[in-house]
């Protein structure tokens, strides 16, 4: 057959008829902006309900723009019940610690349970998000959604004015627009599309302006045996340690160490503007943290595999914008759904909100109504779930953290030196040693302030 004839006979038929499609315009039931936990959960819910869904991800693949971290899997276990079989999970977190660092000294508390070493592992896992999100995206694709990776959404396209104004599609960089009945905005922490949409649709912003924490991480590889020896772990165990104290002096934030399969994640997160006030760079803080004797012992001799940074919206409940507009819902970090209390939970909220948005869209589609009113059940679902309940419970956290900067440096080091002084072996009598230790502990902080601060800090728990 001749080349030209062959081409003429080559017919291109879409696998599924799209609702509206010609050379000029492609319209789907739903478009999701952002292929992270929130966006993919929304896409799973909508594709599962038989909707035609496209997920637009600016990274080369889903997860490419993300880092590593603790993943809480309660919502995931409902979205994809078999996740333990195939998800790329590094290690479950079977032991947790909280450590307080002084200049050279430290003290810590650890706790864990045998129950955490068995399925479902207390729903806490260390993951590399580049791998995990990619896997999650694959699962979403199997449910029928189309991944549109490496595509940067520049803006939403609108129709109507005033109260009837609604997004009808998206403009993709260097590409034609795509159209959809409903759009889920899940573009994450640095959410430029959401930000513009909030302005365009005149959605109300949170009572407080969003502020950001900067998270910085290093992944350091270690041979498996060495890692398990250092952290005292069995092959299917892992640990997560939170640190507060001297390396973060003056910053509002703290550090962490997690164990991967053959690597250790070391990092910290702190309120972005506190770097400026203290005239330190994140890299300097990272160096000081990793050089601390309590941290160095875990990672020495390892190879630095990755050094990354990410933004975290940290203002909590009071900065959450109106999450629903005509034909649009906002989910995950883009809506600021991060719990910055001692639980620092984000991905779980992202998945819960994404799923709620997806389910709401599926119901709205049945009714053929995607107006702001018709999408309100999304907000109601979130209010009834742990997402908004937790965020509401911890709404004072950002304020407390700002108002008690001693929490992150002075108090930890005081407790540390109290213990060190208490257990110092010397020729002095115990009574003398103890008295001096307590005197030193109490010096430098007015008692009333100390008591007030303790009262405030309860809100973090």
């Amino acid at each position, binding site marked *: *057959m*001749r*080349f*030209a004839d*062959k*081409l003429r006979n*080559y017919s*291109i*038929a*879409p*696998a*599924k008829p*799209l609702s509206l*499609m010609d050379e000029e315009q*492609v319209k*789907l039931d739903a478009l999701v902006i952002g292929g992270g936990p929130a966006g993919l959960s929304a896409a799973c819910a909508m594709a599962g309900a038989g909707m035609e869904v*496209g997920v*637009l991800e600016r990274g080369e693949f889903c997860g490419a723009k993300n880092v590593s971290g603790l993943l809480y899997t309660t919502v995931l276990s409902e979205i994809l019940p078999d996740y333990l079989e195939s998800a790329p999970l590094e290690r479950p977190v079977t032991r947790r610690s909280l450590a307080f660092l002084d200049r050279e000294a430290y003290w810590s508390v650890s706790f864990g349970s045998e129950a955490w070493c068995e399925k479902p592992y207390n729903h806490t896992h260390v993951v590399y998000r580049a791998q995990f999100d990619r896997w999650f995206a694959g699962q979403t694709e199997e449910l029928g959604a*189309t991944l*549109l990776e*490496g*595509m940067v959404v520049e803006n939403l396209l609108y129709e109507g004015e005033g109260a009837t104004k609604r997004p009808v599609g998206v403009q*993709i960089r*260097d*590409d*034609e627009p*795509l159209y959809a009945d409903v759009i889920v905005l899940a573009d994450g922490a640095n959410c430029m599309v959401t930000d513009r949409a909030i302005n365009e649709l005149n959605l109300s912003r949170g009572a407080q302006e969003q502020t950001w924490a900067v998270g910085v991480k290093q992944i350091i*590889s270690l041979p498996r045996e060495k890692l398990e020896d250092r952290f005292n772990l069995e092959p299917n165990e892992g640990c997560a340690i939170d640190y507060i104290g001297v390396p973060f002096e003056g910053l509002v934030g703290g550090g962490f160490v997690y164990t991967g399969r053959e690597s250790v994640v070391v990092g910290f997160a702190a309120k972005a503007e506190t770097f400026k006030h203290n005239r330190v760079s994140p890299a300097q803080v990272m160096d000081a943290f990793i050089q601390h004797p309590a941290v160095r012992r875990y990672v020495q001799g390892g*190879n630095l*595999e990755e050094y990354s940074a990410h933004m975290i919206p940290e203002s909590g409940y009071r900065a959450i914008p109106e999450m629903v507009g005509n034909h649009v819902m906002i989910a995950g970090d883009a809506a600021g759904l991060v719990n910055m209390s001692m639980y620092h939970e984000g991905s779980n909220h992202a998945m819960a909100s994404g799923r709620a948005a997806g389910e709401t869209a599926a119901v709205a589609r049945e009714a053929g109504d995607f107006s702001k009113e018709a999408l309100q059940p999304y907000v109601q679902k979130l209010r009834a779930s742990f997402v908004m309940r937790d965020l509401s419970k911890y709404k004072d956290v950002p304020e407390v953290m700002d108002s008690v900067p001693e929490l992150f440096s002075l108090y930890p080091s005081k407790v540390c030196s109290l213990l060190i002084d208490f257990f110092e072996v010397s020729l002095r009598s115990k009574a003398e040693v103890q008295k001096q230790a307590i005197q030193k502990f109490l010096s430098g902080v007015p008692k009333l302030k100390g008591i007030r601060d303790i009262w405030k800090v309860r809100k973090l728990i």
Partner: protein
Amino acid sequence: MAYNSIVLVREIWDTRDLLDGVVRSDGQADTSRLTTRFDPEDLNALEMALQVKDEHGGTVTALSVGASREVDVLRESLYRGVDAVYRVVDPVLDTADTSVKATAATKAVEKIGRPDLFIAGLNVGEGENSHVGVHTAQLLGLPRAHYVDRLQSIGDGAATCIRAIEGGYETVAISLPAALIVGVALLKEDPRAPRSAKARLKLQMKKTPIEQWSIADLGLDPATIGNVTICVGVEPVEQRAIDSRRIEGSDEAALKQMIQELKEW
């Protein structure tokens, strides 16, 4: 006048951001620790063909030799606007050398129908050593230009292209039909830089069936098409040890000392 092109596209191991332990003790790569990508020079080759089509009309067909691993380069080609795609899949190809691949590519090109331009990237990865493109051109009996940096013009039965040579560039005119082996490193802003996948095409083409041919379908005998090269061993490149030395101080004396030491080194 319209021109029809056939572009040879390949999926190669992604050797960016390699992790420790990729090279096994016997010198072979542990491919379970690697992902793949669209050969970047094949993407440049594809872009060259698509630009010819955009400007002059005609068709672009993408051809791939070997099974898809992770990134389906043919589907990716469809998402970028090619008119047709064909894949040669055969167990023989799993361990094939460049001569077998070139033979299969030649037969596939003949089966598709001889084009005005046969274009391939200058793949050096996975033991190809940039052989397959030229070898295929040779077997097709096409005049060829190697290390083509850009296609300057096409018309009057000839293509004028600029090819990289040592220390500079050479402009060559080549009569059509011809083979161009593209070897160029591009910045993203370059007008020759490959276009990205298009959302609409992705939605339309994600499940389009792709026609596959076996070695026998190409009229070749899998029993006799054996490799002409035999790999007797692989050795890893010795990693270069880099000594670093810190010179204390931030004044001019420290700077001079560093310069002095660098000179001596």
